[in-house]
């Protein structure tokens, strides 16, 4: 399926990326190149094949329910672009 500017705009919104109109054509062309290459996948006969998420098929180790992580607030808040009263600050969120 060919990518047009509408598809680019939709994906960009989902990914919270701003794509200016001036970039859309170039970007659509590049994405079409990539997806064109990726479309070789459609040749594969995978009818009876299960997807493989991890190369080694092992199971999830489980952790004991113990508190091991320290309070790092004073270390991490200074990394934030904006913070106040122990909270990270963002422009007002309207529900």
């Amino acid at each position: 399926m060919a990518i047009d500017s509408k598809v680019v705009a939709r994906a960009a919104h989902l990914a919270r990326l701003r794509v200016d109109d001036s970039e859309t054509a170039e970007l659509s062309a590049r994405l079409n190149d990539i997806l064109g290459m990726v479309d070789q996948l459609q040749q594969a006969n995978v009818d009876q094949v299960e997807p493989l998420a991890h190369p080694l098929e092992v199971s999830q180790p489980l952790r004991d329910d113990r508190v091991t992580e320290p309070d790092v607030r004073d270390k991490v808040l200074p990394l934030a672009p904006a913070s106040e009263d122990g909270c990270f600050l963002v422009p007002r969120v309207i529900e």
Partner: protein
Amino acid sequence: MHDKTLTELKAGLHAGDFSSRELTEHFLDRIKRHDGELNSFITVTEAQALQQADAADQAIAAGDHRLLTGLPIAHKDIFCTEGVRTSCGSRMLDNFVAPYTATTVEKMAREGAVMLGKTNMDEFAMGSSNETSFYGPVKNPWDTERVPGGSSGGAAASLAARLTPGATGTDTGGSIRQPAALNSVTGLKPTYGRVSRWGMIAFASSLDQAGPLGLSAADCALMLQAMAGHDEKDSTCLNEPVDDYLGALDHSVDGLKIGVPEEFFPDNLDGAIADNAREAMRELEKQGAKLVKLSLPSIKLSVPAYYVIAPAEASSNLSRFDGVRFGYRCEDPKDLEDLYKRSRSEGFGAEVKRRILVGTYALSAGYYDAYYKRAQKVRRLIRDDFSRAFKDVDVIMGPTSPETAFKLGAKADDPVNMYMADVFTIAVNLAGLPALSMPSGFINGLPAGTQVIGNYFQEGRILNVAHRYQMATDWHQQAPGGFA
């Protein structure tokens, strides 16, 4: 001092030929003199390095010799290092001073390593030429008009120019092996789950793996010995005993069965590249190894499968860079949407954004089955191809890269062409196998590398094969001119 391997430097420190401080100052001085030209470091941690060197000298004096005591190492800037900027090659993290240290860095420090600094890389490890770094491209020391490969380009270039005797890298689709080949150094990507991913900034979680780059297979064995092992902080890091990599180096290769897949020698492959890899295998044949022709039919689809899986995982992994808790935030966001969109658009470079968009698209409603799920099925086919092959052979070999280092900017506008740089390395990541690239000669004055792929947890075996090859050849000892 800088022409010595890590193994030789270790012996020198042990013998008291020089101190760790002298060694560290020597490399710091070389970085100062030569890195202006190469741009292989993003951050040099001089004060910290000297402190660690002094501590190492005290340890040596006290008879406390560990695996890496007093040896300078450069870490790829993808590993979190507490108190030191960890940029991942991105404007997004230009101001990010990590609040903790990656397990790999921690383990090497515990073995006495001295950190020289953080090496340059493609932004978020997305690239094969090191041109996507926010800090500018790294130059190939063999020809500074050419790329060093990527994404661990800074690691490979600094090593080749002898600005560091050892380096760490990460490999998601070839990011250790391809730059190793393009710079004539040895680089190993371990089995997926052999080395902890804790503290390593994620690109594609099911493919990413950290590994060493060194001047020899023996050096890689030494570093891997310190890096490998279980970490309960990483669910995908396996609880398997760590082999004695150093002890296995000298094993004979007599009778070794080397698989030679026809897919690694396609008709359109540059004849010089093909000949170079064949020549390397002939050298091992001389030592008693046997070549076995085989086919891995599904690996033809490894590049397309990779360029669905890796961007899909990346699109999700990179969502945390939202300008809220750390990293870049745009000026004066007018609302939340504006904050997200501008912070991310200004903080990420073009290739990162392209991959996020491809990944977002591949996972979006209506395309998931056609792209992501299908790619995961192809992934199984690829793994099964390798598993079948390893029933008959001990290792699989071929060229690491389909070409030698290309000119800076040559592929900048052609992502798909760029992606083909990893055509021989990507299948290994999809299958999760260990593989290394070793220097195997020069084509028109530019380095070429040969890849040795092993079965799961056979790092010891492929290091052994590379070591035996390096015992008989001196490609790995050659250094680029101009960095005296």
